[in-house]
């Protein structure tokens, strides 16, 4: 009879919720020895890449709620980001900040693949790049003492010299030489994608905001098409930095810019080959990526797509990755996952209608004369 026709949908939903809740406890996998509940601190600390990804896709910097979202969603990133988005809908927008420059960041990692040495120095930081992906079986059963010992040893070995609070941007040197266009400050306020729908063509700030909270896999997939050859970007990572960016808000009483806290972000600036002709001397092009959390793949993919979209806007899109509408309307995880899941909802009214059309078309093909007559007599 189909699930819609079942009386008591309410009970079914409640029972589905109970099942899911039981599954979340892990008791189903190991009924004899249920595992310890995961603490929010453990999620923030030990699953920090996951946590950063959810913060970024949720598009609101609330580390506690992001950890709760991961716990509630049992680790599903799409669902976890969704929790943050829905929560955000209940919050009014109380104000806006001035643009924040990545140069003020307290970095934990900064690298450039453009120059061997950069002012301030390359700083590898906590990078996964040179990991050898071999299992460390000893982690299968790890004691809290062991975790503490690792941290203690690291703190003990900290060097005496203090790092500077900020580092110069690699791009500044290129700018000084005139190899990059001077930064332009758009006179318009930044486009707020949570308060305005995208109507194409959209300003660059709308594109950047959309990509910054995009679902990582979708963004990477489209960016990868541009990297492989559906496009001609040829980027070089001028600088990739990860760190804590001070957030400066106008003071509620004095209006003075006041540091209110800091957020962990990843920022990537890619430089692409020049293509500007005409009277002006040619310059490099710049692609920019930035997102919450430590998430280098996303920041790099975003910077490449930023460049591709700028090219598409100038010359007309020649590839999917250069088409703003194609990219920006297909990278949001909450949208795409919701719509994908909606196909599980009952569609039997529309399917009934489809059946009607198919049967009618088949009747027409099988007996054209009678069908023609039927068409005549029906008003």
């Amino acid at each position, binding site marked *: 009879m189909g699930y*819609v026709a079942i009386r008591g949908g309410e009970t079914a939903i409640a029972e589905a919720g109970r099942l899911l809740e039981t599954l979340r406890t892990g008791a189903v996998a190991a009924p004899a020895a249920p595992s310890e509940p995961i603490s929010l601190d453990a999620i923030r600390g030990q699953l920090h890449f996951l946590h950063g990804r959810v913060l970024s896709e949720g598009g609101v910097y609330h580390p506690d*709620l992001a950890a709760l979202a991961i716990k509630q969603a049992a680790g599903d990133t799409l669902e976890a980001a969704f929790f943050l988005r829905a929560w955000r809908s209940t919050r009014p927008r109380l104000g806006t900040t001035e643009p924040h420059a990545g140069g003020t960041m307290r970095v934990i990692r900064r690298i450039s693949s453009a120059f061997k040495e950069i002012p301030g120095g390359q700083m590898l930081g906590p990078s996964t790049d040179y990991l050898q992906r071999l299992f460390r079986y000893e982690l299968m059963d790890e004691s809290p003492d062991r975790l503490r010992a690792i941290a203690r040893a690291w703190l003990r070995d900290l060097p005496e010299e203090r790092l500077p609070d900020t580092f110069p941007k690699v791009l500044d040197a290129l700018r000084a030489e005139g190899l990059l266009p001077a930064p332009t400050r758009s006179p318009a306020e930044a486009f707020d994608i949570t308060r305005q729908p995208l109507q194409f063509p959209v300003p660059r700030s709308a594109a950047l905001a959309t990509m910054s909270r995009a679902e990582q896999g979708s963004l990477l997939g489209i960016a990868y098409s541009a990297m492989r050859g559906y496009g001609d970007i040829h980027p070089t990572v001028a600088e990739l930095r990860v760190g804590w960016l001070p957030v400066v808000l106008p003071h509620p009483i004095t209006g003075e810019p006041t540091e209110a806290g800091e957020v962990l972000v990843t920022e990537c600036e890619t430089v692409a080959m020049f293509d500007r002709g005409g009277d002006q001397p040619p310059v490099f092009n710049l692609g920019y990526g930035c997102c919450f959390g430590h998430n280098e793949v996303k920041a790099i993919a975003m910077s490449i797509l930023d460049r591709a979209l700028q090219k598409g806007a100038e010359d007309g899109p020649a590839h999917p990755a250069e088409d703003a509408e194609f990219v920006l*309307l297909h990278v949001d995880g909450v949208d795409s996952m919701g719509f994908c899941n909606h196909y599980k909802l009952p569609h039997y009214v529309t399917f009934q209608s489809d059946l009607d059309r198919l049967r009618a078309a088949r009747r027409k093909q099988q007996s054209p004369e009678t069908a023609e007559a039927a068409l005549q007599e029906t008003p």
Partner: protein
Amino acid sequence: MIQHAHTGDGHFGFLDEFAKKEIRRTCLKAICIPGYQVPYSSREMPIARGFGTGGLQITLALIGPGDVLKVIDQGSDDSVNAVNLRSFIMQTCPGVDTTTRTASATLIQTRHRVPEVGIARGQVLVLQVPYPDPLVIVESNELRRRAMHAEGDYARLWVKLYEDLVRFKEITIAHRYPTRIAGRYVIDPSPIPRWDVPRLHRSPGLFLFGAGREKKIYAVPPFTDADPLSFDDVPFRVEEFRATDGGRLTCARCGSHESFLDEIPLPDGGKRHQCSDSDWCARHREDHA
């Protein structure tokens, strides 16, 4: 803060008042320009995109204590999705009554159906919309579609209908049938069957269409023309419910032979039919008891 996060800190209607105001203003604009898709910001809801968040936002922006709400999916109040949406609205809108009786509701949120009896003066029907633009079947680029709407250029839709007739001797659009509103904009009336389209025409009640994921709201105001696209010599036709002997199929539960029927395959290979509109079916059973 965290413990109340799910219900928006208990704020009536979940959304903050700025969001509701924007949605109401968007609805007003939509009513003023019948059939025109008005863009709006469309907040994320705690219900997944594609499950009726566009309709839900309109409902939450319009509803107030004293309203009587009906929520249906596939014509039925008991569908899991309808149950879920209703329960969310009840949780966030204390003081609102619900009903399954079409005639008693002030506000009806629906997916895929218009009630068989249509809607009366003073009633609002909120439809959930997956694809707001009828032109998407012939043009994938939204910027170009907007230009086509602005210029009233529906030529490619007409060609699509014509080509259907050439290839299949039938128009193959089953649901989401393109319908011209007030002689101007062509809308996607949401995935309602063709059966329901005539009820949009000069209806005494208001139809609001909400596409949450696509961030558009549009309207068919009361007493407004709604004409499904059709050729002079090929009239628009709704779904047929004819038995093999040529007679009209009837509902197995209430015996109605004038409603949209769900077809239910039986284990023995046969079929049973019953009303898709559960309230219609219940009323019909009462009347003929």
